[in-house]
C-alpha cells in the first residue's frame, strides 16, 4: 500500500531503455510514446475520475436496483419483503426494548424514538457493510469489465438508500400512529437523509478500499458496527443518559456521526422529543448545531473517502 504500482513500473520502464525489445532498435516504452499509446492501467486524475463515474451513473443506478430486485426474488412474498423487513425489525426492537425492558419515564413516545434510531443507524450500518464487500466480493466483475471502481461502493449505498426510502414510509406511519403530529420540520427530512447518504457514500468508499486489501475486515466489521450501535444512542437518549456527566463527554457522544444523524431525524420527525428534552432540562445539542455536525461529517467523509478510494484505483482486482 506504500507506493502506487504504476510509479514503480514507470521508473523501471525508463531504466530499461534500449532493452530487449523485439525490434531491437528502440525500447518498447519509447515506441509506445512515439505512437501515442497509453498505459492500460493508469489512474485517471481526480476530475477525470469524477467525470467517468458520472458517465456510469446509469450503471450505478441499474446495478443498485437490480440488486434490490434480486435480493427477494426467490421468496414467495417477493418485493413485499422490502416493507416487511423494516416492519419486523421495528417489531422486534419494540418487543425487546419497549415491552420487556419497560417504557422509559423520560421519553413520551419511546416506540417512535427507538424505531427512528434503528432505521437511521441501520442505513449507515448496511452501507458500510455493503461497501466493505463491494470490491472484495465483486472481483470477477472487476476483472472482466472496465469502469471506475467507485461505482461499486456507490451502487451498494444507493441500494441501501432505496431500501431506506421504503423504511422511512413505514416509519412515518408508525410515528403518526403513535401520536406525533405532522409539522413543517418534516420538509427538512430529505436534507437530513441527503447529508447522511453523502456520509455513507464516503464511509463505504473508505471501507471498500480497506476491505479490498485487508481480508479480515469483513470478519471484524460486525463487532465494530455493533459497538458503534451501542454508543450511538439508538436505544437510549444521550442527553438523558449524560445529564450528570461532564459537558465534553456528552459532546463526544453527541458528535459521533450516527448519533448526529439519528438525533437530527428525531428532532425533525418526533415533536415530542425536543419537548421531552426541554421538560427534563437535559443539556443537549440544538437543531442548528446538529445540522452543522451533520454537514461537517458529510463533507469530511465524502472528500476523505473518495480521495482514499481513488488513490488505489488501479490496484483493485489484484487480490
Amino acid at each position, binding site marked *: 500500500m506504500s507506493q502506487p504500482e504504476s510509479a514503480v513500473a514507470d521508473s523501471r520502464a525508463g531504466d530499461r531503455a534500449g532493452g*530487449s525489445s523485439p525490434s531491437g532498435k528502440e525500447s518498447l516504452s519509447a*515506441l509506445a510514446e512515439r505512437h501515442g499509446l497509453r498505459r492500460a492501467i493508469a489512474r485517471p486524475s481526480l476530475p477525470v475520475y469524477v467525470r467517468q463515474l458520472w458517465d456510469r451513473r446509469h450503471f450505478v443506478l441499474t446495478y443498485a436496483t437490480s440488486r434490490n430486485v434480486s435480493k427477494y426474488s426467490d421468496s414467495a412474498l417477493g418485493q413485499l419483503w422490502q416493507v416487511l423487513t423494516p416492519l419486523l425489525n421495528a417489531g422486534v426492537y419494540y418487543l425487546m426494548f419497549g415491552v420487556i425492558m419497560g417504557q422509559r419515564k423520560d421519553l413520551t413516545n419511546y416506540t417512535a424514538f427507538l424505531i427512528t434510531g434503528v432505521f437511521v443507524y441501520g442505513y449507515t450500518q448496511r452501507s458500510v457493510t455493503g461497501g466493505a464487500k463491494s470490491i472484495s466480493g465483486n472481483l470477477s466483475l472487476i476483472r472482466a469489465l472496465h469502469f471506475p471502481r467507485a461505482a461499486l461502493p456507490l451502487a451498494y449505498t444507493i441500494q441501501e438508500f432505496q431500501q431506506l426510502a421504503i423504511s422511512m414510509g413505514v416509519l412515518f406511519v408508525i410515528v403518526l400512529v403513535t401520536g406525533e403530529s405532522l409539522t413543517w420540520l418534516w420538509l427538512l427530512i430529505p436534507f437530513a437523509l441527503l447529508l447522511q447518504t453523502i456520509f455513507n457514500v464516503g464511509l463505504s468508499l473508505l471501507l471498500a478500499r480497506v476491505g479490498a486489501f485487508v481480508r479480515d475486515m469483513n470478519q471484524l466489521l460486525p463487532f465494530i458496527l455493533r459497538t458503534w450501535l451501542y454508543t450511538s444512542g439508538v436505544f437510549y437518549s444521550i442527553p438523558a443518559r449524560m445529564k450528570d456527566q461532564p459537558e465534553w463527554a456528552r459532546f463526544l457522544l453527541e458528535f459521533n456521526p450516527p448519533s448526529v444523524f439519528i438525533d437530527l431525524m428525531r428532532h425533525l420527525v418526533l415533536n415530542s422529543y425536543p419537548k421531552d428534552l426541554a421538560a427534563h432540562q437535559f443539556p443537549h445539542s440544538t437543531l442548528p448545531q446538529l445540522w452543522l455536525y451533520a454537514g461537517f461529517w458529510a463533507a469530511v467523509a465524502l472528500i476523505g473517502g473518495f480521495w482514499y478510494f481513488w488513490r488505489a484505483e488501479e490496484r483493485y482486482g489484484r487480490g
Partner: protein
Amino acid sequence: MAVAELTKELSQMAHPHEQAPQPDAAGAAPADAPEPGAPTVIVDDLHIVYRVYGAASAAEKGNAANALMRIVRRQGRPQMKEVHAVKGVSFVARHGDAIGIIGRNGSGKSTLLRAIAGLLPPHKGSVYTNGQPSLLGVNAALMKELTGERNIVLGCYAMGMSPTQVKERYDEIVEFSGIGEFVQFPMSTYSSGMGARLRFAIASAKVHNVLLIDEALATGDRDFKRKSQERIHQMRDEAGTVFLVAHNLDVIEETCNRVIWLHKGQIKMDGDPQTVLAAYNS
C-alpha cells in the same frame, strides 16, 4: 464440451477464399488495413502476480491453533499464496493483427488477456494501448435471479453503453439471442444454452477497438454457433486488433495471422500460425 463444439464448428465454417495474411514475426498488417503497421498494443516485460486466498497447505490443516502459531511465528498470512502467472512477456501488436494465443491450461493465456484489457495491474512492466481494449465478456455483471430484459439493460450499462445505445441495441440483442419470450423470465430458468446465447448476444453488442476474446465464450445449438461465428468475424473486421484465446488450433489457424505460444507464463514462440502451430503440435 460445448466450447470445443463451437470451435470445431468455427473451423468447419472456414472460408477458403478468405486466406489469412501471413506476415513476418514482427506482425505487419494486411495491406488493406486503414493504418497498416501502427502499433495498437505494446506489452513491455509484463509480469502478473496473483494473490490467491484460501489455499491452505496440507501441513496447515486449516485449524485455528495452527493459524495462531503461524501468526506468533510471524510467518505471514498462511492462506495467501502468490501465483506468478505471467513472467516477462513482451510483444508489439499492430493494427489489423488477429493474434491467437495458445498454450496449455494454466500457461497464463487468460491472465495475459485481462492484463491487456487493463483489468489486472502489472506486478512489473507495463501494457501500452491505443484506446481501451475490451474483453468480450459481461457474465460477471449479470444476475441470474433477474429477467433477461433487466439483464440486457444491466449488461449494456456495465459495458459502458448510454441509454440511447441500449434502446437501439435492445431488440437486436433479443433477436440475436433467439430466446424469444423467455426474455421475460429470470435467467435462472434458462437452459445453459439459452443463458450462454443471451450472454454472448449482450457481450457482442458493443463495438470494440481492441477486442479480446476468451474461448469460454459462446455455446448453444448449431444455428447459434453459426451466428456467433459470423458475429466474431464481423467484430474482427470492425476492431483494429483482435486477440483470441482458443484450444482448438484449427480456429486459430483459420482466424489469426499471428500466433503467440505461451508456456508457463513466458513466450515460447511468436510468429506466423503455420510455424508456431507446427512447433506446438510436435
